[in-house]
């Protein structure tokens, strides 16, 4: 099994993810190869919290063009975890 640090790459800090924290749901960019079980374990290990549920989704990179050159941003995988009531993640650390 992957180390927790290899699973969770970084938190997602946006307006949308901030709104989700009101539901005790936290959002991360994860390793595209990681699965929900790995995410649950990693979050519980790293933040010492109880995870109730995990949703994952693949995000395709966007097409970007610079003049005539077409490129794309990298694909990502996001995970949203629901925590037990009362548990918290100081998701804001080291933005």
């Amino acid at each position, binding site marked *: 099994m992957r180390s927790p640090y290899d699973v969770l790459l970084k938190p997602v*800090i*946006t*307006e949308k993810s*901030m709104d989700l924290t009101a539901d005790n749901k936290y959002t991360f960019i994860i390793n595209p190869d990681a699965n929900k079980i790995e995410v649950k374990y990693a979050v519980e290990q790293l933040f010492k919290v109880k995870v109730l549920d995990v949703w994952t989704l693949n995000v395709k990179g966007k097409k970007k063009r610079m003049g005539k050159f077409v490129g794309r941003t990298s694909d990502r995988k996001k995970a949203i975890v629901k925590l037990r009531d009362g548990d918290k993640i100081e998701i*804001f650390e080291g*933005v």
Partner: protein
Amino acid sequence: MKSTVEKIDQNKVVLEVEVPVDKFEVALNKAYKKVVAKVSIPGFRKGKAPRKILEQFYGPEVLFEDALEIIVPEAYFNAVEEHNVEPVDQPNFDMVQLELGKPLIFKATVAVKPEVVLGEYKGLEYKAEPVEITEEAVQQQLENLQKRHARMAELSADSEAQMGDTVMIDFEGFKDDVPFEGGKGADYQLELGSNTFIPGFEEALVGVKVGEERTLDLTFPEEYHVAELAGQPVKFVTVIKEIKRKEYAPIDDEFAKDVSDFDTLAELTEDIRKNLQTQAEQAKDREIRNSLIDKAVEQVEISIPEAMINERAEQMMQDYGRRLEYQGISLDNFLEMTKQSKESLMANFLPEAENSVKRDLVLQAIAKAENLDVTDEEIDKEIAELAENYRQPADVLRKLLVDNGQLSSLKDGMKADKAIQFLIDNASVQEG
């Protein structure tokens, strides 16, 4: 909000103010609302980032500047009120403790009205000399009137012009028998002795008769403004067309009727004497007041904050500018003409400004020491009088004064007047 006050100089105080955490926090929140609308943080639309994110992204200091702008003036004015400090200048702020989650502590250094230690101001002496109007002074006035109302009368053909007469002439100037520019005129009214023309010209016309043609040999003065003519010998050919002489009416009842509303000379004379008397008395009064104030001020040593002096000098300069404008010159033009900078002109006003500030301070101190106060009725009365002078309804004037914030300066002025009156009332008179 805690604050302490400490005097560091005769005219300077340091206020140390502590703003409690919660008040500081409120200010920070207000500041956050202001700042957040202007900054963009990735992942958030403008104005949507939570405060925590904002602080992490830019550091907590971003909010300090705006928060201080909100809280410091308020805290400062509270402290000023609490300690009855009378600032005369903008304060200098110094942050002692400025950290998130801790009380804000700052020091404000500000110039204040200096404390005036009054010397002896009761029983000052002045000389009361009776004012006397001499017969000559009255006569002088009458003669001035006579001159002002002189009539010009044309002289008959064979009389000669004297100094003081006005002659109408045609003239043409020649230099080496060639006419020069600006040297020609026709039907020119020239008063002999008025020094309108170059020296010698008017003198040379004394004794001419109407219709006479006279050639004048003259030399332009060395400092004449036209360089080619300065110091040059020239010839003027003049033709005298008319001679007029001032005719003075004899000073009698008829004259009195003409120049004034009075019917007889005696009444006019009496009126002139009365006017002179009032003028002299007013001058005398002013002199007494000034000398008493000077004496009271002399005994006081105060160090006046520069800000007060500068402010007064600024006012004086503006007044000066306004007076110049009445003469049709703007202050800027005047400075250009006299090749002065605004600063050097202001420097001229400084000593006078210092005196005037000192005077005011001393008078205020006297008013305070003697509990001289101005009641509302007195202000009403003063406004009513002013209104009459300006021909305006009293309530309109009052509103104007209040709106311009001049009511308090009016009150201060009245207080100062009372202080002066007090000086006079308590002075000992020496009959001179």
